[in-house]
């Protein structure tokens, strides 16, 4: 049994650099505290070399122009820690969340995947560097020894079983993280290294420092043993970034979104998951007055929205950060925020990736990622409400439908296929002609193979003027066209929704019109020729008008 401990040296600085990759290789100092007590709490080696010291005040640190000053960010630290945990879970299912900068992994059973312990350590280092973090790795059969090795030595340190005491000997006692008063006692006694501490007699140490001292002695000698405290994986995938300067344009915003999406997708990949939806939230700054619509009815809160929230629902889970960025950009182009952005928060709904098995006898379905992008572009072109799959509503109102999301493959179709039913005999609901049975015959007679005349709908319907003779329409005129009604079928009366304000009562007719007006309005070639047409008209009792609903074609 072996354990690997990951330690991120100077964690809070690395967390900030991880969020801002352009700071890599530069001197960075972090400030924390409320003014005027704000001071330097952490720095990297470049800043230390330039002369920055701990607890230096903000004004003192400002004199070092070559050093990048940043505020300490708890959000960045949490995000970096979450990414480190996800990375650890991608290697081993048994992980202990020891400290914000320390994680321990159980390497049992991993050798068949990754090979020797050294290979596992290299894999850990490589994956951490992909996240933008430099880590130290210690591997030992003892959890506490592994933790101390990672904290004390840089790079990868492997200790074979039985050599724990010897490996810890040269490390300073500070790696054991003793309490302050015990540390002062060690300094007074001249105990500098773990070897010095391990050499002290246990009974006398217990008399002076109590059980805490004895425990520290066991840690120093590598004799302390404990079990791994497993961490449960959290299913919250979220990233956020606070901006020092508000962003107004789409280009820099897209750059920031891309970075957040890269981190998010990497974490999803570590869990073998994908994003089923992306929740986007912007905390907005003050909007410019000239950019806002002025209306007497809007209140102050409505005029200046403080946040912008949008959801991107995906037809199939995906974790391609570039594709997700394209979709978000299209959405933001269609519906941009009304003010500058001060904070970006992005969260993903995790879901299992789509797994499909292709069929020899069915054509390949559309790539869902390409389809999502195509639909987003079409939405930008014609409006998102004008793109989708039509869905007939369960009502007697003529022509009632709504636009729903286009998701061509569904479980019903696949179940029918698996049950051995041919696709041509799937059971379908037929609002007008009754249910279709397995044999393809309608309940009312006839076969489902008969070609049905199609109706083209005019949206909105055309106002018409009808001449009535003995309760039957005989002449019609609409849109500059006039014609004689050669044959008519009706009236077919229908009504509904009487309990609502938009109750309807119609009398429908199918008519055969013989036009005798200017045929150029009919877009015909021969102006002298009369043209017939089959139309559907109706009388609306609510509006007391005749309308042309559509044309049979």
């Amino acid at each position, binding site marked *: 049994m072996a354990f690997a401990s990951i330690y991120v040296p100077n964690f809070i600085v690395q967390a900030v650099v991880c969020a801002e990759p352009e700071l890599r290789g530069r001197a960075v100092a972090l400030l924390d505290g409320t003014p005027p007590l704000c001071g330097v709490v952490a720095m990297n080696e470049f800043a230390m070399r330039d002369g920055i010291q701990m607890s230096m005040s903000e004004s003192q640190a400002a004199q070092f122009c070559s050093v990048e000053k940043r505020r300490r960010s708890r959000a960045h630290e949490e995000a970096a820690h979450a990414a480190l945990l996800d990375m650890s879970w991608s290697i081993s299912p048994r992980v202990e969340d020891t400290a914000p900068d320390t994680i321990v992994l159980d390497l049992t059973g991993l050798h068949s995947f990754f090979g020797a312990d050294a290979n596992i350590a290299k894999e850990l280092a490589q994956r951490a560097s992909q996240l933008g973090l430099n880590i130290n790795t210690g591997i030992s059969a003892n959890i506490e020894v592994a933790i101390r090795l990672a904290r004390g030595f840089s790079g990868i340190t492997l200790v074979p079983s039985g050599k724990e005491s010897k490996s810890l000997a040269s490390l300073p006692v500070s790696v054991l993280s003793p309490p302050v008063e015990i540390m002062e006692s060690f300094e007074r006694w001249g105990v500098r290294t773990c070897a010095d501490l391990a050499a002290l007699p246990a009974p006398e140490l217990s008399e002076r420092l109590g059980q805490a001292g004895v425990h520290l002695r066991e840690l120093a000698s590598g004799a302390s043993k404990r079990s791994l405290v497993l961490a449960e994986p959290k299913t919250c995938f979220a990233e956020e970034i606070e901006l020092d300067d508000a962003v107004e344009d789409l280009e820099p915003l897209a750059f920031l979104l891309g970075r957040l999406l890269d981190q998010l997708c990497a974490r999803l990949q570590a869990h073998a998951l994908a994003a089923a939806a992306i929740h986007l939230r912007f905390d907005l700054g003050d909007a410019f007055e000239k950019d806002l619509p002025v209306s007497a009815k809007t209140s102050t809160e409505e005029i200046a929205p403080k946040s912008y929230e949008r959801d991107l629902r995906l037809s199939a889970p995906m974790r391609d950060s570039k594709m997700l960025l394209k979709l978000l950009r299209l959405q933001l182009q269609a519906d941009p925020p009304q003010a500058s952005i001060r904070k970006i928060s992005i969260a993903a709904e995790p879901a299992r990736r789509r797994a499909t098995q292709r069929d020899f006898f069915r054509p390949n379905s559309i790539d869902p990622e390409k389809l999502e*992008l*195509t639909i987003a572009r079409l939405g930008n072109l014609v409006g998102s409400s004008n793109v989708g799959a039509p869905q007939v509503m369960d009502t007697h109102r003529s022509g009632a439908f709504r636009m729903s999301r286009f998701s061509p493959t569904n479980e019903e179709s696949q179940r029918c296929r698996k049950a051995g039913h041919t*696709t041509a005999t799937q059971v379908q609901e037929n609002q007008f002609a009754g249910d279709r049975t397995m044999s393809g015959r309608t309940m009312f007679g006839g076969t489902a193979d008969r*070609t049905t005349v199609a109706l083209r709908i005019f949206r909105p319907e055309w106002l018409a003027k009808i001449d009535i003779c003995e309760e039957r329409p005989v002449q019609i005129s609409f849109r500059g066209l006039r014609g004689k009604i050669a044959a008519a079928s009706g009236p077919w009366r229908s009504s509904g929704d009487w309990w609502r304000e938009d109750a309807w009562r119609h009398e429908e007719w199918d008519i055969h019109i013989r036009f005798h007006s200017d045929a150029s309005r009919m877009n015909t070639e021969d102006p002298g020729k009369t043209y017939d047409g089959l139309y559907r008209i109706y009388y609306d009792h609510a509006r007391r008008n005749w309308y042309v609903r559509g044309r049979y074609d």
Partner: protein
Amino acid sequence: MPVNFATLRSQVERALAGRVAAPFDCPDRNVTENVSTGIDEIDLLTGGFPRGALTEIFGPPCSGRTTLFVSALSKRTAYLEECALIDASDAFDPCHAQAAGVDLKQLLWVRCRNINQALRATDLILQGGGFGFVCLDLSDVSREVARKIPLETWFRFRRAVENTRTILLLIEQESNAKTCASLVLKLEAGLARWSTTSQTPLRNEDGQIRGADFLQQSFARFLAGMDVHAEVLRSRMKPVTKLAFRANRLSAAAINSGSRAQETIFRANALWSCFGKTFEAKQQ
């Protein structure tokens, strides 16, 4: 030593025998996979709609173009193919389409407001790819506007679907795609059929609908359907050499056994005729 190409060719063919059939024959570009339109008469006339090619259907209003499109759409969605309709005039009726057997879940409907949106939407859908059946419906776009569409647009659309399994269908009032279309079908309205309870035929001996005095008679009547006359103006598919029509289903057809038929008539029925008893008016 001079090379005998005939000997070399026969050696290569012998070496590849059983693995590659006719390695030196160029593939026949006119051989395409055709799919059923859902109307037997049209299938017999044209061989079906070709995949990887542009098919153009044109005709005046009320000539059966949308009927043919909905029939083909019903067939494609029944086989779970993803279909797209770019509707330049927002005239599609999903209720009737569902009643005609179209699986609306398989249909992506793009409702455009003008022809520019329709053409750009078609570009986006063809570039995205993956659809088995794409229809650009310009039925209600005026002839003047449709004539202004540059020919390169049709070339671009045809090129986009070449070597794919996509059927691209164009519906217009007059033919504009010219040589870009592999199949051009002209439709004309035939006879409208009315079912009535009266024993008196609706039409007189000359085939004209009876006058106002007849219309004043009280009887129940409903639109039973209409006949559509279809004619092939251009086809790049292989000619159909053997045709068989059932004469009692057609009022008129050009049938020449052993030669290629150019036109046909198919019958479209109104939804009402699917239920209830019908008294068919005697036609000519």
